[in-house]
Each structure stands twice: as structure tokens, then as C-alpha cells.
């Protein structure tokens, strides 16, 4: 079985996000980048399946050259090959644009299972699984927390409100991995050393038959118009409690007159 795992290289969840000068993008200086945690579940499941049943695992991403570090980390964990669709100089696109690029690349890759995280922690849009599946005309199952393989098919457990749903899908299909599916492994030093020697295939959108003009600028259906940070939290106000009675009165007054919650 051949697996392709689509990964996103996103700002670390612990990064303090700063808004860029144009007010609609993130200031990328000092950002630490990581493979999106949900994609790690996807990769782990693909690797485990390959170890049990043979085949190959290829990781695929769309991004600038820095994303090669993320791909190399996946290679270090055990992926066989890595492909990057270069975003350099492409201009701003949207989820559908990315889905088109991924789908175009996937068409040439003969995957039995296409994996990705249920969402990327960057934008949290959560649409990639369905979009890619739709563009490839494949079934998709998202929020998957358990997988069982059969001949030419797969049984998938998915989290739904208040319970679990068990579905069977023919192969190939697109699977969205969710928290709880597995415990991702660490890259071993051997893996890291081996990954260094591998070549990452870099493809331009044009190589995949996608016209950049069709997915960027005015053609992008979703555009960021403004980004705002949540308002800064105000400093904590301490009420002196020398006299409990007076302190309670003061607290009530503040809650009523200043915070206006009463």
C-alpha cells in the first residue's frame, strides 16, 4: 500500500503571534515552525500501516523553502520520500487554491490512502480533507481516531457529537486524522542522519499543470482583509482586605459600576 501524507508547516502553538506591517498577515520573524500536530497523527498512522503491511509513505506539502525542514523531520521519522510544491513568489492564495495544487500533485502519485490532519493549527479552517477528496473525486472521512484495514477497504472510527461513528470506505480515500488516533513517534538520530541524505522533490505549480494566476489575487475566493490580536488582558486589581466588610462592599461596587456584570 502506498500512502501520501499531506502536511502543513505552521507556527508553533507556543509562538507569540505578531501582526505584520500590512495588518493582514503574520510577522514571520522569530516564528518557530513545526509540523502541524494533527498531521503528525496522520504521518504516524501511515508509518505504522507501512510497517505492518509494507508499501511506501510519501509526505507532501505546499510552502516556501523553509518547509523543507518540516519535510525532513517527517523523513527522519521514517517517511520514504518527500515532495514540496513551491509557494515561492506565488502570491496569496486560499484553501481552495492549496487544495487544487495538492490534488494536482496527488493525481500523479498513485496513493492507496491519502492522509492529512483533521485541520492545520495555522488557520484552523478544517476544509482541506473534503476539498482535496472532492477535487480527486474520492471518498473522505474526517476526525478519525481508529483505523482497521481490510482487503481494498478500510474501517474508520470517527468522533461525532456525543459518540463514535464507524464507517467503511473503499480505497483509495482521503483520511483526516484526529487527536487520539495514536501517539506520534520521535525522530531518532539515525532517522535524522538518513533523512539528510534524501532529496526533496520540489515542484512548481506550472509543473503540475496549475496556472498560478487562476488561484491567486482576485481569483482567490477567500482573502484575508484584516488580522487583529485579542485585546490585551488588563492588570489584576487587588482590593485590600484589612476590613473584610469594606472589601466585600468595594468588590460589589466594582463588579456593578466598573465591570458592569451585575
Amino acid at each position: 500500500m502506498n500512502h501520501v501524507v499531506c502536511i502543513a508547516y505552521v507556527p508553533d502553538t507556543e509562538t507569540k503571534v505578531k501582526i505584520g506591517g500590512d495588518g493582514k498577515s503574520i510577522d514571520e520573524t522569530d516564528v518557530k515552525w513545526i509540523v502541524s500536530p494533527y498531521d503528525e497523527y496522520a504521518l504516524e498512522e501511515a508509518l505504522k500501516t507501512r510497517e505492518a503491511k509494507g508499501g511506501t509513505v510519501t509526505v507532501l506539502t505546499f510552502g516556501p523553502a523553509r518547509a523543507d525542514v518540516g519535510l525532513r523531520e517527517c523523513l527522519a521519522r521514517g517517511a520514504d520520500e518527500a515532495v514540496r510544491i513551491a509557494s515561492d513568489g506565488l502570491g496569496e492564495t486560499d484553501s481552495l487554491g492549496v487544495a487544487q495544487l495538492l490534488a494536482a500533485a496527488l493525481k500523479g502519485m498513485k496513493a492507496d490512502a491519502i492522509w492529512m490532519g483533521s485541520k492545520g493549527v495555522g488557520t484552523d479552517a478544517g476544509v482541506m480533507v473534503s476539498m482535496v477528496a472532492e477535487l480527486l473525486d474520492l471518498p473522505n472521512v474526517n476526525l478519525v481516531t481508529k483505523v482497521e484495514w481490510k482487503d481494498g477497504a478500510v474501517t474508520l472510527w470517527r468522533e461525532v457529537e456525543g459518540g463514535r461513528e464507524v464507517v467503511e470506505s473503499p480505497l483509495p480515500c482521503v483520511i483526516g486524522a484526529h487527536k487520539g488516533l495514536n501517539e506520534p513517534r520521535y525522530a531518532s538520530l539515525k532517522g535524522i542522519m538518513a533523512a539528510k541524505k534524501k532529496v526533496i522533490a520540489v515542484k512548481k505549480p506550472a509543473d503540475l499543470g496549475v496556472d498560478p494566476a487562476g488561484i491567486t489575487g482576485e481569483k482567490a475566493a477567500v482573502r484575508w482583509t484584516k488580522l487583529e490580536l485579542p485585546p490585551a488582558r488588563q492588570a489584576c486589581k487587588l482590593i485590600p482586605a484589612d476590613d473584610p466588610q469594606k472589601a466585600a462592599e468595594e468588590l460589589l461596587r466594582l463588579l456593578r459600576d466598573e465591570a458592569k456584570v451585575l
Partner: protein
Amino acid sequence: MSTTKTDTEVHSFLKSLYKGEFAESLVFPFPEVPEDVKETVTVFADAYRDFDAQFIDSEKIDRDHFFPREAIQGLGDLGALGMTIPEEYGGSGFSAAAYCKMVEVIGPLDSSAAIVIGSHQSIGLKPLLLFGTDEQKRKWLPDLASGKRLAAFCLTEPEAGSDAASLKTTAVYDPATDEYVLNGTKQWISNGGFAKFLTVFARIPSEAAEKDKHREIACFAVVPDESGELPGLTRGPEEKKLGLCGSSTCQIILENCRVPAFNMIGGKGQGFRVAVETLNTGRTSLGAGSVGGCKQMIKLATEHATQRKQFKTRIADFELIREKIAEMTANTYVLESMVYLTAGLIDKGVPDYSLEGACCKVYGTELLWKTINEALQIAGGNGFMNEYPYGRALRDSRVNMIFEGTNEILRLYLALTGMKEAGDVLKGVEKAVYSPLTQYGVLIGHAQKWMQGNVPAFDKKLQKVHPALAPEADQVSHYASIFRNAVETIVFRNGKKVIERQYLHHRIADTLIDLYAQVATLSRVTAAIEKKGEEKAKPEIEIARWFCFQARHRMVASLKALDKNRDAEATAISNAVYEAGGYPFDLWGW
């Protein structure tokens, strides 16, 4: 790398200093680590941190005095036990710089893990790596790299600590089976409780004269089966220690333990050299561990000092705190410069870095102790509470100044080796370092040579330091010259008694460490200025100025005291104490 005539002749920067040369091209430019190596180590460090967070509970390990066995297997699977082993033998072939960087990461996360990893590859398997035959390496290194077998270095004995050459364990050849039969007891063996590859140093008895007794020593790989058993090998109970409580430390008792002759590493008579070289190469990484520990303490101290308010002021703004923070930080920068300059020498293939490694170990382990102490002081009362990390850090770091050569022995080594280099007459000084009280060759001959003016004057200057640091460079050149002449004078004045003048050795060693520290710092800051420009490198220039100023005071004090001192009084005082069996001056005469 440009090589001048001087540098092809000189194989060690500090030895060249004693000879009256600056082998400047060994230490300039400051070594740079290739980007791909940085990337590998960065990714591996992240993986290691994740592993540590999930599997290593330092508080529990310290409390239970036990390092979980699954965690050791985990370290093996991760690749942390094969970092220094070449790829062809199943490891990752890390450069010295890459290994030091990882030690820097591992140490502060969990010091017991650092001891498991360090005892394994900094010393335990090092004899095999340095002196093993290809056949021996193929046989054992792959299992050592994967963590299937953990190594332990077995040199120390109850009666042979600093004087390792006096070890008593014997190895007697049995021609009938082509085996050696080992008998003896090894003491305080790190990883001793679970090691499955023990490098044991033992004496093959001979009729050799007393002064050649160290030539009897050989190194043997003692290799138990997969369950850790071997007939004749017993492991003592775990020692109860002040710190590093999770690491295993115990006696290894050998009673008619049979080892195939094939297992001798480095050949007959080479054991002492194997031990010394192993320890020499391992010391730089102790400096690296200290760098990591210091950085952790600076972080804790900064967090506390900037948050804690007293007298309506954050304590960080008080000059008594600034002084501490500046000192901790500048000294850590200096140590980092020394460690990675030395690692660079190793990676460049410079054959002798024993003095540089010893400088890193002595300076680093003492700096870490001081730095933890200062961070604890900044934390005030909290620092004394066990729920804060300072107490354990102090306990865990204390042994650094004792093991892998006590800092006292290393100071003697730094000074005596220098005297040997300076005069080139003190034969067998490496042994003298481990049996410093044994008599050695006569130095008078050299003193005569010196009197006749046959020793070249030291008038060299550091040429490659950036002009922004010209006063500091001149200072180093000036004191290097005074230092070198002072060493000559001491040799001349004391004759062969010089090897007993440990008061003087202390001062010589401290000055040598300060000289190396300054050269390393000036080299690194020069590189920083060339890379970023003077403006951006300003904080680093300030560190160099701060440190060289401090170092000057210390050097002046030490060098003056070579001549004018109260050493005779120190001897008299200690004599009085020894006679009384303790403090003899109680005010009430009790």
C-alpha cells in the same frame, strides 16, 4: 585552513604557549559549525526534549534513586547512545562540536540521564573507539550504539583514585585457553549496575622496576552476556550519593573472571595511555555540560530577578543583583567560547588538546558550581526550598569537580605539562600527573640552558584579534610573555623539587586557564565583529572587556605570588593542625 611552519610543528595551542609561541592559526578564526550539522543537532535536540518531557521524570528519579530501564532503552532507540560512534559502526558520527551541543542540552534536562549517556560514550566505550582494532569495533560498537549494551569505564579502585597508576587489579594470562584471568575490585563505577560492556584496567604482573610499573597496565573489554551475567563478575550494591541519584554507581568485583585475550584493547603495556587519552578526550564535554547548566541558571535567575519586587523595585535593578547576572553571563560566554574552540580543535584534527580540555573541565565545573550558588542566592529564601530546582542542581553538580580527574589533579597536570613543554626535560610527566609525588627527571640541565640564554625570548603578539579589542589582545600577549618567563624562573629556582611545589602549580594553572579563556573569547568576539559589524557585536565586545579586566587582576595576583607569597606560613599552619589533629587555636583553649 592556512598552515604556517609553526603550526605544523606545534600540535597544541597551550603547549605552544609554554614554548614561547602563539600558534594563532589554531585558534583563529573561531571555528564555525556547518549549517547542515546545526540543522541535524537542532532537530535531534527537539526530539530529545520531547523524549525527556515524556519519559524522564527527574524529580521521581532523584527521589527513587532509580533511572527507569525503559528510559535507557528509549535513549538507545532515540540514538542518544551512539552519537559519537562512526556511522560505519552503527552510530551517527557526531563531530565534537555537535556532541558538546547535545551534552549542553541533555545535562540541564536531567543530570542522571546525562551521566548514563556520558559515562557510556564519553569514557566507557572510548577506549574501544580510540584504540580498538577494526575487528573489535565491528564486534561491539553496533550494540553499544543501539543501547543494547551500555558501557562503563572501570579504572578507579578503593586504593587507587587520583593515583590511578597504582591500581591493584591483576590480569594473569592462561596460555591453555588464551584468556586473561582478572582479579580485583573497581570502585564508584558509573553505569556499573547495568553496564554490559566494561572497560577494565588491570595489571599484568611483571618484574618491572617500580618506576615502570605503569607499563604493566592493560585495558580489557569485559563483556557479560545479554542478561548482564559473567562468571567471576559481581556488582556491588548501589552507592548512596549526594547527587546524580538516578545514575548507577557501584563496585565491580572481579574474582577469577576470565576474559579472552582478544578483548585486550590497545595492546600490552598500553593500558595507562588508553586511560589517560580516554579521560583527556572526555573532559571537553564536561565543560559543555556546564555551559548548559549555567544557561539554565541564568534563565531562572533572570525570571526571578525581573519579577520579584522589594522596596517597590524589581530586584533586577539593584546593582548587587546586576553584578551577579553580569558575572554569571559573561563567564558563561567565556566558557562557551573555550568549549567550542576546543571542540573545533578536535574536529580540525589537532592531535593534542589535553590541556585545552582540562581548562574546559576545571573552569566549567567550578563556574557551574558558582553560578548555581549565585542563582540560588538571587532566589533568596525560595532558593533554599526543595520545591525549587537549586538544591538538586547543587547536589548534582558537585561531583563534577571530583570525577574524571579532580580539579586539583588537573591543575597539577596543566602546570607540570607546561613545565615539561617549557623545559622539555621533565620526562614521564604524564605519569607524574597521576603519581605526582613520585620522583622524576632532573630539571637542572634545562635551568643551565636557560641561564646560558639558549631559550628563545617570548615576544610574540596576538595578530588576528579585531582592532576594537587591541588593548585586550596586547594584555594577553604581555601576560603570556610574563607567564612563560615566570615558569622558566620557577623551574630554574626549584630544580627537580619543582614537581613538589604545588602552591606554585596552582597559580600557574590558574593563569594558564585565564590565558586560554581570554584567547578563546577574543577569537569568538573577533568572529562576531567580522560577521555582524562592531555595532551589533557590542554586547559581546563588552563581555570581552569585562572578562579580560577581571582576568588581569587574577593573573597579576597569581604571577606576583609566584615570587612573593606566604607559602611557608601555609605549610606551618597546616603542620600545626595536623599535629593537633584538628583546629588547634580554640579561643578558650578547649
